[in-house]
Structures are given as C-alpha cells and as structure tokens.
C-alpha cells in the first residue's frame, strides 16, 4: 500500500518549504503519493448582495482556475518531474476543516503545511488556520517553518 502525504499550500514561499520537506519524507518512506491541496478560504455564512450572488458561479470558476494554474499545477508538475507520484486538489471552504476532509477522503496518513502567515489581531482572536489544523486534524500534522 502506498503512503499518501497531503501538502497544504497557501500560495506563499512557506509552501515551497512544505513541498521540500514532503519530498524528503517521501524519499525516506519509499512508495509514496503526494497530494497537493490548495484551499480557497470561503464561508457559506457570509452576507452578499444579489449581484454578488448572481456572479458567484463565475467568480468561483475563476478562483479555482487561478489557484490551479498559478499554484497547484506548477507544484504537481514539479513533483512529477522529480519522479514523484502526485495529484492536485483545489477546493473552497474553511482551510483547516477542508484540508482535514481532503486527507480523510484521499486516505492520507499525514499532512504537511507551511507555517501560516496570518498575524496580528486576527490571529489572536481566531487563531491561525495552522493552529486549528494542528488541534483538530485526524492525522499527524507537520508544520514546516
């Protein structure tokens, strides 16, 4: 059975370090599949204007498209070029919850993420996505600095 490692990206350079770490890990483990996941922060409980609602579907396609072409596909291509078995997933939702959900769906055995870039007041009140992930994930989480 192959081990699956989920890499959570956030579009910053910490993602690169998460990928590097996951690569290293995968090499040590042997047969490994790497799942590159990017979660677009989104909540179903926000308030929107009618016009925003009408355009929502189009926006969503654009967001998915952008995340796929700018972040996920280059990462997956890079991993494949380096000889790894890799696939990419882009999804909307709460970052911590969704990353965990993707991992469970894929049968991943651990999650690797970069340290979150949120800081200041927001982090003090809500905690960062990384903290939430570490606290609530169903599999071990590695946070790369």
């Amino acid at each position, binding site marked *: 059975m192959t081990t699956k490692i989920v890499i959570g990206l956030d579009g910053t350079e910490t993602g690169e370090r998460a990928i590097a770490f996951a690569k290293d890990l995968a090499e040590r483990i042997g047969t490994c599949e790497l799942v590159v996941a990017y979660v677009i922060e989104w909540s179903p*409980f926000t308030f929107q*204007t009618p016009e925003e*609602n009408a*355009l929502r579907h189009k926006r969503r396609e654009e967001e998915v498209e952008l995340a796929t072409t700018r972040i996920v596909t280059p990462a997956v291509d890079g991993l494949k070029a380096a000889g790894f078995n890799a696939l990419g997933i882009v999804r909307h939702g709460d970052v911590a919850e969704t990353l965990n*959900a993707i991992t469970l769906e894929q049968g991943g055995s651990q999650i690797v993420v970069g340290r979150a870039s949120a800081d200041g007041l927001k982090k003090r009140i809500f905690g960062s996505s990384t903290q939430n992930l570490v606290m609530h994930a169903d599999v071990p989480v590695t946070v790369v600095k």
Partner: protein
Amino acid sequence: MKGDYSDPNDAGEVSHFQALATALSGTVGLGNIAGVAVAIGIGGPGATFWMIVAGLLGMASKFTECTLGVKYRNEYDDGTVSGGPMYYMSKGFNELGLPGGKILAVLFSIFCILGALGGGNMFQANQAHQQIAGITGEYPGWITGLVFAGIVFAVIVGGLKSIARVTEKVVPFMGVMYVLAALVIIIMHADQIGWAFGQIFAGAFTGLGVAGGMVGALIQGFRRAAFSNEAGVGSAAIAHSAVRTKEPITEGFVSLLEPFIDTVVICTMTALVIIITQQLIVDPATGLYMLTEDGSGIATVDGNSGVSLTSAAFGSAFGWFPYVLAIAVVLFAFSTMISWSYYGLKAWTYLFGEGHTKELVFKVIFCVFVVIGAAANLGPVIDFSDAAIFAMAVVNVFALYFLMKVVRQELASYAERLKTGEIRKFGH
C-alpha cells in the same frame, strides 16, 4: 439550510444561507418597522392578526415561487444566472403547452419595474427622510433624496461595490439589534403581553371602532404583510434563483423561512411594542380607539404615523433608541433600494435586452425616483407602491396557480428519492 444535504463539491457557490440572507435583507426592513406602524395606525391592533395569517399563507406562495425561480432560470455561457417570475412564466407555460406565458412575463416585468420604483425605492426614501427629519427637525425632503440618490448612483452606476458590501454586512446586525430591543421592551412589560394579544385577537374580528371595522383591519393586515415579506410578489424568486442547486425544491424549503422570520416573528414584535407602549389613544368614555379628525386612522400620541410611530414607541422605553432606529432605517432603506434596483434591472433587461446603455437608463431613472420619493408625502407614495406591488402579485399568483403542478411533481420526486436514499446527507 444548514447544508447537510449540500454536496461539498459545490463549496464556493452561493449557499442556501447566503441566498436566504440576501433575500431577507431585501425584505426585512422598512416593511417591518414602518409598514407595521402604518397597518396598526389605520387598521388597529387587529391588523396584526391578519398580518400573521398572511405571513403563514405567504410561506406557501414563497415556497412555490422560489422553487420555480430556480427551476426555470437562465444560465448564460459566462456562468451568470438570471431568474425570476418572467422566466418561469414564459418557460414554464411553454413546457405545459399553455398560451400567454410571454404576455404574463412582459406584464410582470412592467409591474416589477414600477414596484421597484415604488415600494423598493420611493417608500424607502420617504420613510428614511421622515426618520431623519424626526431627529434633526423638519427640512425639505429633496435634500435627503439627493444625498441618497447620490450614494445609490455611486453603487449601482459607479460600481462602488464596497458601500453595498458594507451595508449588507451591517444590516443583519441592525436587524438582530432591532429584534433584541423589541424583546427587551416586551419583557419589561411582560404583564401586558396577554392584554396586547387580547387586543390583537379582539381587533381582528370586531374592528373596535377602527376605520373600516373588521374588514379594514383585514385589508390593512394583508396589504402590509405582502408589502413586508413580498410573498407572492415574485421579487424573492429573482434573488433565490442565483443559487446553483440541482434540486430547485431545496431552495423552496429555505425560502419558506422568509415570511416566517419577516412577518410572523419581526412584524409581530413591532406590533406588540407599539400596542404595549400605548401609542394608540383610547377614548376613555367608550374604551375604543379614537379616530383622527378626518377618520382615516387611529389617533396616536403626538399624531405620529408610519415610521415615526414605531420610533416613538421604542423611544418611550429607551430615550436613545430613535437615534439607533434612524441609522437602522437609513441602512435598511438603502439595502432594500439596492436589492430592488437589481430586481427592477432584471425586469428591465428582460423587456429591453441587456446592454450597457439600456441598463444605465434604468439606473438613472431609479435614482431620480429616490429624490421624488423623499420629497413626496407618505400617502401618495404608499398608494403608488401598493398598486404596483399588488399588480405584480396578481400576475405572479395567476401564473403560480398554473405552475403549481410542476412544483408538486418536483416535491413528490424529491421526497421519493430522499426516501430511497438516492439523495443522501453529506457528513460534516
């Protein structure tokens, strides 16, 4: 509504909650604050009873129209959607092989534009001005109108989306605050709740010397309820059609909540506050409500009517509340105008086609009516708004009657698949 039956792969689309919140911010507003006061001021406390009845009935028509709105919407290649009564009228009637769908759709669109200019615009501007003037002292309405028109213009023509977005975010909190304040006042007068309900029930069937008697109370109740929750009018169907669900019926279930929250809960609270704080003057000799001199309504303390009646009722409990209410009224009025400008625009583009210049013409007309509404008297504004919205409702309900069986089939098929497990709950 919680989304337990929503597919996680649809995450990122407009959620049921968002569609409900958007539609609610279009409906919860002055209808609940000022409309109730108008109803009680003319029809007496009994009008409240009929408002509640109308609200409960409204749940059924809302369910039907929102289901149809989603089922028969247009989806364009660029991913945007347009829906609403004009689409289910023309498409639905075609599908059933009935004639006249197109004519109904055109009629509805015309009335919808008038409704947008009346109830969705002039009434809002008018009451917002009345509320502001009540605090700052009297000044000409066109000044408020111009300021409002300027802001509305900036949003709908200038594309200053940020203002709309801020409003959309503040309005729900205003709504919650309004309900809380009403609750506190009602609890403070807890001993009178029974009496107030007694007034509402007695008034509903006897009239208590109200203008027009029991029928007057009934008409006022139904009118203001329709005005407030827009059930049967067709406007909410436009707002709900943006949701991308494979099951139109689920949108119908969500929309059921609207008339309930709007009319049955919020309107009743406003009514209780007005009755409990005794804003209506009772003739000590007969124990009946005193009519105003021209007999058009019930005499109130200080002769208030419309939004100022609600304001005075809340103000009698909390001296500072009229200020908060003024801000709330302005924001509610504003968000309702933005919502209705969208509904009106959809009807306009249905009639004349899409296009930048055509849309601009409507938007400019819309802004002009903001000024007219703020400067005019309440009476004619309400009459015009009522007429337009009533006309929308007549056309819409007529169409709903014929399309009802489509909804019934949808419902039966959904229930069947739910039972057989074809539609399953997505675990969270």
